[in-house]
C-alpha cells in the first residue's frame, strides 16, 4: 500500500508546491512587516494567510475528489486496476492519501498562523490583552471556556467532518461508476445520494450528542463518530469497486 500512496502523492504534488510558494511569499511579507514594524503589512499578510489557509484546504480536498474521478473515468485508471492490488488496498491508499493531504495542509496552515500570531502577541502586548478580553467575554456571556484544548478538539472535529464529506464524494462517484453505470442520469442520482447520505449522517450524529454535554465532549464525540463514518464509507466504496469495477 505504501507504493500506491507514493504514486497518489506524486499525482498531486504540483498543487502542494504551489501552496507552499504562496505561503512562502505571504510569510516573507509578514516577516517584512515585522522587521519594519509595519502593522498594515502584518495585518494584510495575516488576513490573506487565513484566507489562503481555508482556500488551500478546500482546494486540496476537491483535488482528491477530482483525481479519484479521473482515475475512474479515464484510461489512466488502468494504471491502478491492472496492478495486483485489491480494490480495498487501492481505495484505502486513496483515502489515506486524502486524509493525510487534507490533514497535513490544515496542520501546516494552522501552525504557521499560530506561530505568526504568537510572534505578534509577544511583539505587541496590546494584542495579548485584546485576546484575553475576548476570552473573558466569551466565558461570561456565552459560557464558553475557550482554551487551546477546546480549540484543538474543535479543529480536529471540523477537519474530520470535512474529510468525511470528501470520502462521501468519493463514494458517490464510485456509485455512479459501478452500480449506476448503466443508469440514465447517473450523475444526478449519485448527487442526490450524496446529499441524502450527508443528511442521514448529520441526523445519526445528533443522536449521540446531547445539548447538555460540555462543548469539549461534543467535539470529541463528533470526531469519533466522523472517524467511523470515514471508515464505513471507505469500506462501502472498496466493496462497490470490488463487485462492479468497470474502467
Amino acid at each position: 500500500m505504501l507504493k500506491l500512496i507514493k504514486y497518489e502523492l506524486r499525482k498531486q504534488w504540483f498543487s502542494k508546491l504551489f501552496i507552499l510558494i504562496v505561503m512562502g511569499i505571504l510569510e516573507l511579507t509578514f516577516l517584512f512587516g515585522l522587521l519594519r514594524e509595519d502593522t498594515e503589512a502584518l495585518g494584510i499578510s495575516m488576513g490573506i494567510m487565513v484566507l489562503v489557509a481555508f482556500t488551500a484546504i478546500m482546494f486540496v480536498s476537491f483535488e482528491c475528489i477530482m483525481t479519484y474521478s479521473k482515475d475512474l473515468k479515464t484510461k489512466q485508471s488502468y494504471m491502478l486496476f491492472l496492478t495486483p492490488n485489491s480494490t480495498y488496498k487501492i481505495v484505502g491508499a486513496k483515502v489515506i492519501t486524502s486524509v493525510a493531504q487534507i490533514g497535513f495542509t490544515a496542520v501546516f496552515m494552522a501552525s504557521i498562523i499560530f506561530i505568526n500570531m504568537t510572534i505578534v502577541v509577544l511583539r505587541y502586548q496590546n494584542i495579548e490583552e485584546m485576546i484575553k478580553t475576548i476570552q473573558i467575554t466569551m466565558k461570561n456571556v456565552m459560557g464558553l471556556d475557550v482554551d487551546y484544548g477546546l480549540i484543538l478538539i474543535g479543529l480536529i472535529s471540523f477537519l474530520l467532518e470535512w474529510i468525511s464529506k470528501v470520502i462521501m464524494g468519493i463514494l458517490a462517484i464510485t456509485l455512479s461508476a459501478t452500480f449506476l453505470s448503466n443508469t440514465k442520469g447517473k450523475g444526478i442520482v449519485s448527487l442526490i445520494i450524496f446529499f441524502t447520505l450527508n443528511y442521514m449522517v448529520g441526523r445519526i450524529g445528533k443522536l449521540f450528542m446531547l445539548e447538555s454535554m460540555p462543548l469539549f465532549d461534543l467535539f470529541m464525540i463528533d470526531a469519533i463518530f466522523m472517524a467511523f463514518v470515514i471508515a464505513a464509507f471507505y469500506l462501502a466504496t472498496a466493496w462497490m469497486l470490488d463487485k462492479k469495477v468497470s474502467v
Partner: protein
Amino acid sequence: MLISKDVVKRYMSKVAVSGISMQMEEGKIYALLGPNGSGKTTWMKMVAGLIKPTIGTITYNGKSIGVESKKRIAYMSTEPFFYDYMTVYDVGRYYEDFFEDFDIEKYQQLLAKMDLSLKDKAKNLSSGLAAKLKIAATLARKAEVYLLDEPLNGIDIIARDHIMNAILEVANEKTTIVISSHLVDELEKIIDNAIFMKNGTLVLNGDAETIRKEHQKSIVDLYKEIYAHG
C-alpha cells in the same frame, strides 16, 4: 489455463459480449480476430480484471480473476494510459514497483530497439512511440499470459518486425499469448489458434492449421469471408 465460461457483458441496452466460452492453454499463441465492436477488447479487459462480466465466469488456473491472476497476466490496451506526469523512466519504475515479474533490463533493451529515450515524457510521445512504450512495458514482464490488444496499431512497418520478434521471444511452452489485430496477415505467420468474434459472439474457434484445412483457405481469406458482409 485460462477459461472463459458463458461470459456476457452488457452496457445498458447494448450487449458487448455474449456467451463467450473458450479455453486457452499454455504454450500457444492465439489470434483474437474481429472488426471494431466485435467484443475483443471487452473480453480482454474482463480477463485483465478491468471490468466484471455481467454473467459468466473467467478463471485462471482455477481461480477467479483478481489479485493473483493480475500477478501473472500482462495486458496491453489499445489506448495510451500512463499518467501525464510520467517519463519513460517513470513508467519502468512504476512497473518495477508493482509487478514482481517485471525485468527492468529487458525494458531498457526494448526501449533501445524502439528508439525511446528514458527522458521522454509519455504524454508528449507520438501515437507510434506511445504504442511502442506500451509494448515495451508489457513485454518486459515475464508473465504467464500476455493479452495484446492491437499491438501493431500505429507502428511503422520496420518496427513491426521488432515487435513481432519481441512477442516471439516471450513465447514458450509455459506462456499463453492472445493477440488481437486487424493485421491478420502479420499474425497468420505466428499463431497456433484463431478465434473469430462477431457482434460479441464466437463465430469460429480452433487450431489455425485445422481451420485452414477444413475451410481450404488462409486465415486472412477466412477473415475477409466472415466479415466482408457485415
